[in-house]
C-alpha cells in the first residue's frame, strides 16, 4: 500500500513534467500545424541559461539574503529569455520556411534542436559532461501515512498546475487566446477578421518556449543534474504525450502526459527489469495509439480534405 502511494506520488511528478512539455508541443501543432522538434532542446537551453545566472546571483549575495523572493524572480527571468528565444526561432527559422513543404520545416526544427544541443556542449565549459544543477526548490519534506512527501515534488506539481491554469486563462479569457484559437481554426478567415496572425504565432512560440524553459528547470532541479543531450528524450516524451492525448488539443496533452507518466513509473516498478526498458514501454504505448486510435484520446477524427 505504501509503495503504491509512493509510486503514485512519483508518477504524478513525472506526469506533470511531461504534461508541461506536451502542452507546449501541442500548441505549435494546434496553431500552425508544426511539430517543433527543437522543443525538448529548448527545455535544456533553459537550464543552461539558469546555471550561470544563478551562479552570478549567488556570488553577488542576492540568493542568501532573500532566497524566497530571488528564486521566483530568476525563474521568471529564464522564462522571459526562453520566450525571446522562441520568438527568435520563429523569426529566423520558421517564418522563411512557412511556405515550403512541411517536411522541410520539420527537418529544420530537427536541425535546430541539434544546433542547440551541440552549441551548449561546445560553448558551455565542460559541456560534454553532466552538470550539477542548483536546488531551487525548498528541500525537506514531511511524513504522511508512512510515506515521505518531499516539498520539492509538491512544489513541482503545484507549479505545473499553476502554469496550466495560467495557460488555460490565457487561451480562454484573453484577446490573445481568442486570436490563437481563431488562427488554429482557420488562419485565412482569422486574418480577414482583423487578427494579426504574425503576432499571434509569435505569442504561441514565446509561450511554448517559456513552458519548455519551465519544464526544463523543474526537471533539472528535481534530479539535481542537467546535460546537453537530455532534451531529445524529454522532447520526444512530450511529443508522445501530445500524440496520446490528441495532437493540437490542450486538454489532451495534459491527459496524455499523465497517461505516459503513469505507464512509465508503474512499468518500471512492476515489470521485472522494467527500469532499463521504461522508455521502450512508453514508445510501445504511443505506437499502439497510432495504430488503433491515431487521433489520440481526446482528438477528433482526422478527415482528409482534397
Amino acid at each position, binding site marked *: 500500500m505504501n509503495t503504491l502511494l509512493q509510486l503514485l506520488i512519483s508518477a504524478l511528478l513525472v506526469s506533470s513534467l511531461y504534461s508541461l512539455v506536451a502542452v507546449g508541443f501541442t500548441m505549435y501543432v494546434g496553431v500552425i500545424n508544426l511539430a517543433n522538434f527543437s522543443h525538448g532542446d529548448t527545455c535544456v537551453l533553459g537550464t543552461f541559461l539558469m546555471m550561470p545566472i544563478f551562479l552570478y546571483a549567488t556570488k553577488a549575495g542576492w540568493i542568501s539574503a532573500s532566497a524566497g523572493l530571488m528564486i521566483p524572480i530568476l525563474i521568471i527571468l529564464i522564462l522571459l529569455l526562453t520566450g525571446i528565444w522562441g520568438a527568435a526561432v520563429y523569426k529566423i527559422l520558421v517564418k522563411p520556411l512557412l511556405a515550403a513543404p512541411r517536411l522541410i520545416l520539420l527537418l529544420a526544427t*530537427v536541425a535546430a534542436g541539434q544546433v542547440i544541443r551541440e552549441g551548449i556542449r561546445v560553448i558551455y565549459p565542460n559541456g560534454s559532461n553532466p552538470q550539477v544543477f542548483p536546488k531551487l526548490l525548498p528541500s525537506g519534506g514531511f511524513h504522511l501515512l508512512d510515506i515521505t512527501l518531499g516539498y520539492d515534488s509538491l512544489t513541482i506539481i503545484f507549479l505545473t498546475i499553476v502554469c496550466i491554469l495560467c495557460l488555460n486563462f490565457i487561451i480562454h479569457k484573453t484577446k490573445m487566446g481568442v486570436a490563437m484559437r481563431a488562427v488554429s481554426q482557420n488562419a485565412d478567415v482569422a486574418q480577414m477578421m482583423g487578427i494579426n496572425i504574425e503576432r499571434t504565432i509569435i505569442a504561441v512560440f514565446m509561450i511554448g518556449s517559456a513552458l519548455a524553459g519551465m519544464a526544463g528547470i523543474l526537471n533539472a532541479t528535481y534530479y539535481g543534474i542537467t546535460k546537453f543531450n537530455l532534451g531529445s528524450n524529454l522532447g*520526444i516524451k512530450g511529443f508522445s504525450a501530445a*500524440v496520446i492525448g490528441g495532437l493540437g488539443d490542450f486538454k489532451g496533452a495534459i491527459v496524455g502526459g499523465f497517461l505516459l507518466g503513469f505507464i512509465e513509473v508503474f512499468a518500471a516498478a512492476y515489470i521485472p527489469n522494467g527500469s532499463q526498458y521504461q522508455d*521502450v514501454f512508453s514508445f510501445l504505448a504511443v505506437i499502439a495509439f*497510432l*495504430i488503433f486510435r*491515431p487521433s489520440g484520446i481526446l482528438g477528433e477524427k482526422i478527415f482528409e480534405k482534397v
Partner: protein
Amino acid sequence: MESSNLGKNARFSLKRGLTPALLLVIIALVYAIVAYENWAVVLLCLAAGAGLFFAYSRVPAVKALITESMRTDKVLLLVTGILAALVIPLTLRTQPYVIHILIIALISIILALGLNFQVGSTGIPNLGYAAFYGVGAYTSALLSTKLGLSFWISIIAAGCISALFGWLVGLPTLKTRSYHMALVSIAFGLVTYIMLNNMGFTGGPNGIKNIPAPEIFGWSLFSSIRLFGNTYPIQVNFYYFVLIFAILAFVVSRFIFNSKVGLYFNAVREDEIAAKCSGVNTSKMKLLAFAVGAFLAGIAGSLYAHYIGYISPENFNMNTSLQILGMVIMGGMDNIVGVGIGAFILSVAPEKFRSLADFRMLATGLIILLMLIFRPSGIVKQQIRVYAGKIFGKENALKGDNHD
C-alpha cells in the same frame, strides 16, 4: 546561314574540350581533398569547388555550357569517373588511413542512397535511420560470429532483416501524418539503441568484437596483395570490395528512380490524396520505400561490421541518423548523384578537420539548417521527369531542365 553554322561548329569544338578540362579540374580537386592531410590545402580546394559550383548555379551561361557538355559526353564522363575511382587508391599505398576514409565514404553513399528513398523520393521523415544500419550490422555480426555463417549469407540476411524492420516501422504510420512518422522513427531509433545496450546477446555497451573479414572463394580480404613488388594495405582490398557494392546500390537506386515505382514515390510525396485518386497504392509505396531504404542500410551495416571488425551501440545512435540526413539534404533530396556528392563531402571533409572534431555535430546541424533555409533543393537539384522525349524524339527530352 553559313556563318551561323560555322559558329555552331566552333562552339561544338569548344564544348568537346570543355568536358575533359572540367573533369581534370574536378578529379584534381577531389584527389587533393582526399590525399592531403594539410587542412589549409583541403580548405582551399573546398573553396575552389564551392566557387566552381557558384559559377555553375549563378551564371546561366556557365550552367548551360556545363550541362550541355556533360550531356553530350556522358560516356567519357562515366569512363573517367570509374577509372579515377579505380586508380586513386593505388596511388595512396602509403596512406592506408586515407583509403579508410574513402571506404567509410563509400559506405556513407550506400546509406544516403537508402535514406533518399524515404526522405527524398517519398517525403517521409525518417529520423532513426541509423537504427536500420545498426540492425544490419548486428545481424551480420551475430550470424558470422555466433553461428559461423559465411559473409555472403550474413550480408543478405542483414539486408532482409533490416528491410523487415523497415516494413514494420512503416506500418503504424500509414494512417497518420508526416510528423507522426518522425516521432515513430525517432522512437524506433531510441528503442533500438536501448535494446542493443541492454540485451545480453548483443554484448551490451561492449558491442561485438572479432567479426571475421569477408572471404571470396576462400581468400580473406584481410590478406594484403603484392603487386609489382609493392605491398598494398588491406584497405585497398576492402576499397574495391565496397566500391562494387556502392556501384550496385547506385545502379539499383537509379533503376528504381527511373521506373514507375520511382514515379509513384514522387506522387506520394507531392500529394498523397491525389496519388490515391490516380490509382497509386500509397500504403504499399510507403512500405516499399521503407523496406528498400532499410535494405540498403542493412547492407551498409554489414559491410561496416565486417570491415571494422568491431561494432558497438554508439555507432548507431541519433547523431549517425542526423549525419546521414545531413548528407541527403546537402547533396539534394531525390537526386541520386547529388546524394552521392553530399555523402562524399560530409564523410571526407570532417576527417580533414580532425582538430575541430568537437564541432563536427554542430557543423552538421548548421549545414542542414543553412541548406534548408537558403537552398532546400541541395547541391544538385531534383530533375524534372521528362517523358515527352520518348514520344517525340530526342530533341524534346533535352529541353527538360532543372527546376527550383
